[in-house]
């Protein structure tokens, strides 16, 4: 289990990760979604103790990364598949990792087999394709047989066959009861791979729920245009709606169009538009994350 609590990271005037709180549970693939530059990698690096948080913390099975005595046995991570000294062979790379955490000497060979690289274990990594490096990175993540796995953009640069392989592989790991946390900027890919979602935009949490809930919420919304948007936004929020605001309109999710009409009438607001919106999941995701800066935090359940 990965727990992130009030995690915040600032670089100069920019808040890259902003008060992020979520939990990743075992037994399913949890997609970590957000557009490029939304803070996914920074969050992953903070979970892994590679970057210090300005505020808040992240724990793996209840302990912070730097407190783990043999981290590779607790969490496996793929962060940058190119991060291998090119003159080393694949098996040599895995051997030093195994040595670093007192892992069985047979394990490097086993994990190479698991990712289908056993035939090239003696070849230098410098000559590997990106797909092979990704597989080696996954083998490295599995070296300590950890219950928690974190993959940062594992499908970047892969061909369709490689993407399919990784998808099935990650689902298999989750089926074994492991926690699998995988970041991506592709909603369509996560829709196929993940069952749980953590969605962020501009460093803030947009959603942490099952993919079905997210789909339901994101696909249907109601657009409201009115000269009294502020008043309406407050009223909708107290009713438990999620809101995305643009200059002259409000996207309302979580309450029905009938309720919206009734609330508007109660507040006494003039409505210019009240229309149901249908979008593909990809469009909905783009809209949600692009407008995240204007996002008003959900009142629901909080």
């Amino acid at each position: 289990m990965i727990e992130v609590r009030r995690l915040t990271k600032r670089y100069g005037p920019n808040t890259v990760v902003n008060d992020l709180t979520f939990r990743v549970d075992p037994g399913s693939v949890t997609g970590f979604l957000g557009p490029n530059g939304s803070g996914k990698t920074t969050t992953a690096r903070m979970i892994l103790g590679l970057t210090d948080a300005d505020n808040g913390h992240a724990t793996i099975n209840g302990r912070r990364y730097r407190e783990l005595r043999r981290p590779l046995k607790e969490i496996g991570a793929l962060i940058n598949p190119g991060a291998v000294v090119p003159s080393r062979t694949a098996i040599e790379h895995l051997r030093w990792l195994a040595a670093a955490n007192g892992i069985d000497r047979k394990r490097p060979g086993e994990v190479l087999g698991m990712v289908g690289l056993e035939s090239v274990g003696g070849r230098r990594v410098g000559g590997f394709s990106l797909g092979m490096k990704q597989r080696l990175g996954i083998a490295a993540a599995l070296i300590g047989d950890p219950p928690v796995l974190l993959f940062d953009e594992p499908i970047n640069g892969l061909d369709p066959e490689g993407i399919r392989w990784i998808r099935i592989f990650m689902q298999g790991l989750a089926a074994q009861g492991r926690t699998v946390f995988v970041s991506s900027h592709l909603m369509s890919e996560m829709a196929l791979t993940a069952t749980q979602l953590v969605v962020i935009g501009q460093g803030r949490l947009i959603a942490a729920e099952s993919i079905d809930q997210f789909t339901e919420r994101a696909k249907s919304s109601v657009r409201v245009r009115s000269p009294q948007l502020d008043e309406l936004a407050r009223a909708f929020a107290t009713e438990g709606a999620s809101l995305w605001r643009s200059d002259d309109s409000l996207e309302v999710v979580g309450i029905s169009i009938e309720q919206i009409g009734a609330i508007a009438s109660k507040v006494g607001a003039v409505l210019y538009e009240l229309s149901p919106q249908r979008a593909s999941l990809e469009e909905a995701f783009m809209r949600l994350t692009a407008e995240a800066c204007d996002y008003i935090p959900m009142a629901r359940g909080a």
Partner: protein
Amino acid sequence: MGNALAMEWAKLRPLHKTSRTVLLSIVLAVTVSALVALAMASSAARMTVTDRQTFDSIGISLQGVNAAVLAIAAFGVLCMTREYSTGMIAVTFLAQPGRLRVLAAKLLTHATVAAIAGACACAAAFAVGQALLDTKGLAVSWSASRLPWALLGGVAYLVLLCIWGVALGALFRTSAAAITWMASLLVVAPVIVQILPADIVLRVERWLPAQIGTTAMSAHPNPHMFAPWTGLALLAGYVALTLIGGAWRMVRTDP
């Protein structure tokens, strides 16, 4: 710490790289020592009796160590910069989150290799140099009283510079910057100092790492230089300062 050491040994174990460094340092030491000894031997006929009495046979035979030092220092630099330039340092920190522990493990393993390589290089350079000097009766015996100290001084010099290399690598993170600094201090600084007025040269030269190394391997004390072990202690001070900077950057700046 045991696991961190095991990790660094396992990185060094694919021996092609490591053994190449060891071999290169020995080859450099022997070649340069041989050339210097040959030059000395060829001018032996013109030497006076006093020349022969003050002739630093041990120091001349160990001249090659000044060349080997470049290979050993680069070996130290690369153990850091190779990881920082590829990003592999992040993987290292995933396996061993303690930054200082990783640094200590790298220092210990690389200093050990440097000590072994250094001992071989010093002994080989001395043996070859002496064999060539012997043809003109300029050799000393292996039982010469200053010899163990000179050899030990040479090894200490090499180990210190390997550690300095690791420290510079941790401080600068790129091979280009770290090796440029190393080469500037070892090779360029002595040349620049020679441009200065003679009386200043004598005062400044003794502070240079290369001069400290040469003095440590010499059998004849040079009044203008620090005593061999004083010099090495000073060099160790330089190394320690750089190491503090490198460790600070390793801990404070994200990989």
